[in-house]
């Protein structure tokens, strides 16, 4: 059913359609509207046979899901930012135990400094914990990915996190087609656990494993993700049959045929990127883009194929590996190691900074002309940064860097002298 609805609310409805049995909620911006939505559906009786548990921390939230899933119930929770770190131990635990929990991550920056706006630091902080990580480009895809996620998680016995950009998607009102219950029921069978706590057939789950077997256990986790590389497109294909639209899968190429420069990105920024591609193509530039939907497992072969024709690859990412450069870019480079291309890292949108079509056009143009440095921070205020570095060099007790930068920006605004030296 078509609705003009807030992204979070659409996701809450999608989750409810998947008939979760235990939902545990701890609030953190920007996922709050999702868990509030699910809670209301439980309380009103619209979502039956589901317990909505208000827990005292994110660590407890995922832990409750772990217990519920191990006991045979379909479990769901949501988090973001600091919350994903607070539950980090449980994130690794859930993957290690092979529990098919589905979790929404409303992508948000991680402090210090505290920041409530969107970037991908939170998802990247646990990218190697063994969870499948899917990134939604639109609110429609966010809805669809949650439905696919439960099926994917339960078939593989592997937890799945569905990432959607905080505020940009979670709080945006977009037209979304929320499926009917019968459609979801046809697509998603009841949870049939690989392992379950049952007095009739008791066994121990979570034993210590020593050096003699640990490598094998970890290899199996890797193998499971490799299986997901096959299963994700299969499930997307079945989804298309049942629901009538394309959603999910490993990656979405856009106008990559004959493209010399291809932009690669995760999540909602792909919408903006596609507009830039369209406008530059209209001017005769050979540009295209690839939206990576499955970040873990990382689709090395598929990405290599999608980027094969390009000379320049521009990875626009909302994450940073301080001291190295790009996180996504490093993964992309791995896909291209046998067929080396110039891979540019563009760090953009950190802490919610808007990514404009103008700035994207500029970096794509510079990449094509060879003027783009290897690692480039989009729209960086170089004056402010230079001022702060100089100040820190001058005095030992130079004060907190973040606050100083805010002061620079404030004084520049008031004097009308953007970037003037203090």
């Amino acid at each position, binding site marked *: 059913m078509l609705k003009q609805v807030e992204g979070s609310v659409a996701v809450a409805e999608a989750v409810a359609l998947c008939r979760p049995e235990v939902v545990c909620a701890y609030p953190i911006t920007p996922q709050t509207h999702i868990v509030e939505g699910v809670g209301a559906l439980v309380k009103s009786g619209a979502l039956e046979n589901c317990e909505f548990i208000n827990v*005292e921390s994110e660590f407890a939230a995922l832990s409750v899901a772990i*217990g519920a*899933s191990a*006991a045979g119930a379909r479990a769901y929770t949501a988090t973001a930012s600091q919350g994903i770190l607070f539950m980090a*131990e449980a994130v690794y635990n859930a993957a290690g135990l092979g529990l098919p929990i589905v979790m929404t991550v409303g992508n948000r920056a991680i402090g210090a400094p505290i920041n409530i706006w969107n970037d991908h630091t939170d998802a990247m902080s646990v990218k190697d914990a063994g969870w499948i990580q899917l990134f939604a480009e639109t609110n429609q895809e966010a809805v669809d990915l949650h439905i696919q996620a439960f099926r994917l998680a339960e078939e593989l016995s592997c937890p799945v996190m569905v990432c959607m950009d905080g505020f940009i998607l979670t709080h945006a009102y977009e037209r979304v087609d929320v499926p009917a219950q019968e459609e979801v029921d046809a697509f998603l069978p009841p949870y049939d656990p690989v392992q379950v706590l049952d*007095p009739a057939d008791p*066994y121990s789950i979570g034993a*210590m494993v020593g050096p003699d*077997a640990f490598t094998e256990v970890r290899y199996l986790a890797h193998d499971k993700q490799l299986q997901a590389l096959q299963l994700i497109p299969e499930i997307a294909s079945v989804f298309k049959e049942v629901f009538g639209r394309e959603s999910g899968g490993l990656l979405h190429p856009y106008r990559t045929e004959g493209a010399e420069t291809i932009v690669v990105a995760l999540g909602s920024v792909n919408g903006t990127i596609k507009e830039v591609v369209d406008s530059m193509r209209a001017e005769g530039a050979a540009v295209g883009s690839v939206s990576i939907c499955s970040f873990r497992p990382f689709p090395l072969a598929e990405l290599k194929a999608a980027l094969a024709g390009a000379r320049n690859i521009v990875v626009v990412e909302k994450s940073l590996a301080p001291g190295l450069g790009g996180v996504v870019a490093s993964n992309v480079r791995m896909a291209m190691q046998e067929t080396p291309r110039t891979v540019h890292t563009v760090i953009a949108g950190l802490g919610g900074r808007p990514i404009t079509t103008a700035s994207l056009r500029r970096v794509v143009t510079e990449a094509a002309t060879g003027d783009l440095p290897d690692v480039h921070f989009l729209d960086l205020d170089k004056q402010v940064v230079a001022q702060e570095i100089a100040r820190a060099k001058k005095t030992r007790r130079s004060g907190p860097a973040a606050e100083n930068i805010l002061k620079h920006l404030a004084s520049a605004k008031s004097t009308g002298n953007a970037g003037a030296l203090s």
Partner: protein
Amino acid sequence: MTEESALQRVKFYQTGTHTVGNRLMDDAARSVQASMDRSNAITSGHRACQGCGEALGARYALDSAMRAAQGQLVAVNATGCLEVFTTPYPETSWQIPWLHSLFGNAPAVATGVAAAMRRKGRDKVKVVAQGGDGGTTDIGFGCLSGMFERNDDVLYICYDNEAYMNTGVQRSSATPPAARTATTPALGDAPGNVFGTGKNMPLIAMAHNIPYVATASVADLHDLEAKVTRAMSISGSRYIHIMVPCPLGWGSAPCDTIRIARLAVACGLFPLFEAEDGEVVRTGKIRRPVPVEEYLKPQRRFAHLFKKGQEDKERLAVIQRMADSNIRRFRLRGEGEDS
């Protein structure tokens, strides 16, 4: 009892494991441990130290819980000695469904298991969560408080050996004053653990107004079993705190575990009581009180208080005052009162 008699009245005392299997008792009054069909939730072959109080306490508690739940029981375990010595990969000594997740989340995991059982229409399956003092009073404290506040239907059992024993005897917030541990060594002017304000987990549990809180000892099997059985008959959050001596960490002889547990109760340092909805309703009376020294002396973790010719009278007096205060507060010396 008005008649004076030349004959001395013979009093039969329940003296813990001495009367396991006592043929004078009728079947109904015998302990679960004495019965042929006890579940052996933890079976033999585990790797606990000789004389381990926790292995004993867990076996006592879980077999009682299994009987009360008619075999429909799931155990959730925090990281710690019990978890490690019962599951040396690739073996397990658990004969019941068992889940170990992390160190600090056993209460939350148990909450999830209980919720799942309800959703799956398996309400008869009961959940026990268990951890040591480290996992309960320190790292798991937040999750435990959350579980209590929600009154989740879980029985949480804390096996308190008063330190992080599994990792080599480091101090926890349950470590008593003056005790030597690896992080509170018996060195300097104030050897052993600090004389702090303490952290009384049973009282904290009571402050959450949960339906049932109890303390129990491995020295009193019948009492421990009765408390577990009573707890299993109540729904909502229940908390049982069992003191379990650790020969390795306490520096005591393995054969002294039960004796030391008895002395802890007898001197007043470990009061036995039950509470319902935040109020103490029953206490275990001390029949033969002993000075704290009798309890402390057999443990090398307190040896620095008893240096030859240099007994630390001051610190011992403070410990005695703590014991006396417990005796007063919990009325552990009532005559003619029901225990």
